[in-house]
Structures are given as structure tokens and as C-alpha cells.
């Protein structure tokens, strides 16, 4: 059954389609939760089909993907090599992971507002928060709405 490979399939499935084939990819959702124990065939029945494109992407016109390089967001589940799905139509509310442009480079950090100051906060104790000043000419480029990564091999 296709759903058994849900996570590993995602990046490959998205590769040729981008937003053209979105309507066509539907993946069955099973009624029961996946338990980590012995699989029970009795639970294994279809509840509905999920259109994976529509599930992941609310605003196709403003959605982009980017690849991650670096490790300052590991505790926010953003790892090197991950693919981020970014929506430029969303507001950069406090506490959301955002893509911003700093000195001509795209970077991903958590956006935080403390009183009248704005900060870009990493999710790795090895790095410091960046206080955003006017001279930095920082612009928010979009909000990370999904992170695509392969499951870790144990």
C-alpha cells in the first residue's frame, strides 16, 4: 500500500509536480493511528484520500521551496538538507520560523518581538540571537509552513 512510504515519498513526489500536478496526487489516510508495535491488519482500512498538494500548500501563488544549509535551527526540527515550504502570503507573527533577507542572503530563524525590539532567534544553544537594527535592512521574505525531511535511519 502506498501510504506505508508516506514520508520518504514526499520530496520525490513533489519533484516533478511543483504546482502543476498538485490536483492529481492523493494519498490514502488510514483510519487508525500508526502504532509502533506489531501492525494490526484489522486497523488497516481507508478513511479518506488526502490531496497532498492542497494539504501542504494553501496559497500556491505565494508558495516557494528552499533548501536548508547549516545547523542553527536544529532544535526547531530544521536540519541541513531539509526542504522548507514557504508561504509569502502569511504574516510573520511572533514565534514563527521565517525566511528573511539579511545582507543579501536568505536565512531562516524564529521571529520574536520583545517590547519594541525585533529579534531573529536561532534554535541551537551554540548560536546567539540577532537583534534586528535598521542598518541591517532586514526584510521578511516568508513564513516556513512545512519542513520536508527524510526519516532518520536508526
Amino acid at each position, binding site marked *: 500500500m502506498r501510504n506505508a512510504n508516506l514520508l520518504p515519498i514526499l520530496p520525490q513526489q*513533489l519533484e516533478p509536480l511543483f504546482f502543476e500536478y498538485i490536483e492529481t496526487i492523493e494519498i490514502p489516510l488510514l483510519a487508525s493511528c500508526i502504532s509502533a508495535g506489531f501492525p494490526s491488519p484489522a486497523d488497516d482500512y481507508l478513511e479518506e484520500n488526502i490531496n497532498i498538494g492542497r494539504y501542504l500548500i494553501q496559497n500556491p*501563488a505565494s508558495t*516557494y521551496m*528552499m533548501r536548508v*544549509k547549516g545547523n542553527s535551527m536544529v532544535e526547531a526540527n530544521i536540519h541541513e538538507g531539509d526542504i522548507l515550504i514557504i508561504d509569502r502570503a502569511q504574516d510573520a507573527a511572533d514565534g514563527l520560523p521565517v525566511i528573511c533577507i539579511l545582507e*543579501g542572503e536568505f536565512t*531562516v530563524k524564529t521571529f520574536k518581538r520583545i517590547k519594541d525590539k525585533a529579534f531573529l532567534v536561532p534554535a541551537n544553544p551554540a*548560536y546567539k540571537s540577532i537583534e534586528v537594527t535598521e542598518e541591517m535592512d532586514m526584510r521578511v521574505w516568508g513564513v516556513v509552513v512545512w519542513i520536508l525531511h527524510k526519516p532518520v535511519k536508526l
Partner: protein
Amino acid sequence: MDSAQAGEAVTSLFALADCNSFYCSCERVFRPELNEKPVVVLSNNDGCVIARSNEAKELGIQMGVPFFEIRHLVENGHVQAFSSNYALYGDLSDKVMQTLSRFTPHVEVSSIDECFLDLGGFYKVDLHQYAWEIKQTVLQWTGIPVSLGIAPTKALAKVANKLAKKSRKANGVLVLTEPYHIQKALEATKVEDVWGIGRQHARFLKKRNILTARDFAQLSENWVRQHMTVVGVRLLKELRGESCLELEEVAPPKKGICTSRSFGKRVSSFDEVQEATATYAARCAKKLRQQGSSANLVTVFLHTNPFSAQDRQYAASKTVCLPVATNSDMELIRYANIALKTILREGYWYKKSGVIVTGIVPEGHVQLGLLDPVNRGKHARLMEAMDGLTDRFGRGKVRVATQGFDNSWQLRSDYKSPGYTTNINELPTAYVR
């Protein structure tokens, strides 16, 4: 009773949204450090400049200037040049058009960077505010700056858009609904800049001291009909605020399709010219299928480089009438090849070849020959399968053998940016350091 009889105000209203220096803006979306810096985009084969940012214009770089004339500026780092990346521009254009279509259900995409919006019925809203909202949303969602001109007719919306781009005060948004403002805008528009007035008509009008759009709008209908046919009259009425050009929400099928390119290098071998021509024929066939048409005539042309003083010059073309109209790669390639063989001569360095298909008819209206030996059902199924594979795996992955696999004749594009939004291996990178 129609609205005119009822004495109601005319409520037609169009917006023209035009992307600013579109190709350059697309390159800047993923290269933000290039904002406010001189950027140019080069034609196929890196031949000449086809798009310039405002900063590049300020440096005096002209449209169409050969690349070698500004190469020193690029090599010294004064200007950033890009080879054209149509996959990126096409995808970003789709995003812009999708965003614009959120603001009205009726849109006409008139080119890759331009779109008319029917805002009829929006008279009661604050149009300036609405236009500003459209502009800001497109910029925020897609990264592409647009200018908007709003007016009661399409021709006036064009005038408004042009002024919106030029005027610092307008800052990219101009609403022309007040008669006084419309007159001022027409005064400020040169007659040669009016949408639909070609070079010849502009020369003709200027000789008669008709220098601005306002001068033109004051002409008599009879005089315009006499000298510029009914098309001119329509334009006259449009400039006077009477809407004659409707929104074309579905683009009409093209009447002729041409695919031609300059070769990346000088080519003399028959095989290479043949491969290139076959590839162009296949692209024409694909375009025909996309618009649901077939062609009756195929023309092939080729020529040497007219700017090369040391080469012998030769140019020729040949048109072949097909027995049955077709949109099959294999058939068009076959007939393009027949045409090519009649004009290809040995001993020349060829610079460019191309294929033009004409006599285009709807796919369903093809007249079959009585003794037609081609199994058309099979061809159609095969083409459908090939198109499916092409859409999935990219252009050229499946092809007719005549198109070859070496393709050393193909274009040069030394400065091409990645397929940021169309190729998963070339996604932009976000750094988390």
C-alpha cells in the same frame, strides 16, 4: 432597457498590471543583493540585451545592444548579466497572474508580464487604495514589482500604466477616471507611445502635427476611418473613454507559430542543421497540440551570419504543403526535413535556422485524405504519451531520433541562473548559521 438608455453612468473599468523590468525582477527575487543594482538579461545565445533594470538604463545601456559592447561592464562587476531563463520567468509569471486573479474574476493575460483586469462595478471602492493593495500583494507574495494603470477603457489603462511607471509622484499606481486627469494624461503621452499606433501611422500623424494622444483623440471619426481604418476608429473611441475592446479571457489560438534560434556556434554540417531543424519542428508540433490545432503548411528557413564579413552569405526558405494537417512531431519533422534538403547547400557556415507552421486549423476540423496512409489515432496516442513524459521529466527527455542527442549546435547561455522554482535540484538556499 440598457444602462445608456436608463441614463446611468458608464461603469466599464479596466486595470492594466504590468511587471516592472520583468525578467530582471525575476532574477532579483532569489538574488536580493542585486536590488537597486544594474541588471541586464540577454537574448537566446547571449547575443544582445533584451531586458534592463532602471539602474542599467541609467548607465546608458540601450535595449538590443550586442552583448560584446557591454561585456567589459559585466566583467568589471559594474553590471550583472543573466542569460534568459524562461522556465523561471514563466513560473513567476504564473504566480503573478494567479495573485492578480484574486482581485477580480475576469482577467486577460496579454503577455508574460502584462495582464488586464476587468474592474467594472468597482467604481464605488477607493480605486487608488485598491490598486495600491494589488501592487503590495503581488510584491509581497511573488517578489515582483508591478505598476497599475486604471481607466474606463483598455487603451486609457495603457496610457495610465505608462505614466504610472514614469512618474515619481504616481509611484507605480495611476487612476484615470476624472475627465480632467484623462485630458492631462493624454497631453503627456506622445502619439507614438499610444497602444495600437504603429511606427508608420505615428510618422504619418506627426507629419500632420498630431503629436500627442490628446491631439489624436480630438480628430474626427471620419478622418481617422479614412486614414487608419476601423481599427483606428476603435482606438479613437477608447481614448475618448468609450470602451470598444472587450476583455479576452481566453487567448485566441495563434495563426502562425515560429520556432527559430541562432546556433550556439557556427555550423556547417548537414547533420547538425538537420537536428536543429527537427527540434524546432517538434517544438512547433508541441505548441500546436497545446492550443488544440493542426497545421497545413510548414516553412523552413536558414541563413548564414550576415554580420560576418569573411563568410560567404546564403539565405533560403522553403514551404511545404502537407497532404493532411497535422500536429504530430514525426510528420512535421518529416516534412520539415524534406523542405530543408531542398535549400541546404554545402560550403556555408550557418548561423540560424527555423521552422514556421501556418494554415492552422482546429484539431477537430482536419480534412482527411481518401487514401491517407497515416494511422492518425496511433500518432495522437503516441504524442499524448510523449507530452506526458515531457511534462513529467522535462523537455527533450523523449524525442524523435532525427532530433539527435549531441545538440552541440544548441544555444550558449553562460550566465544562466538556476531553475529556482522549477527544478528541485536547483532550489534556493536558506542559511542557518
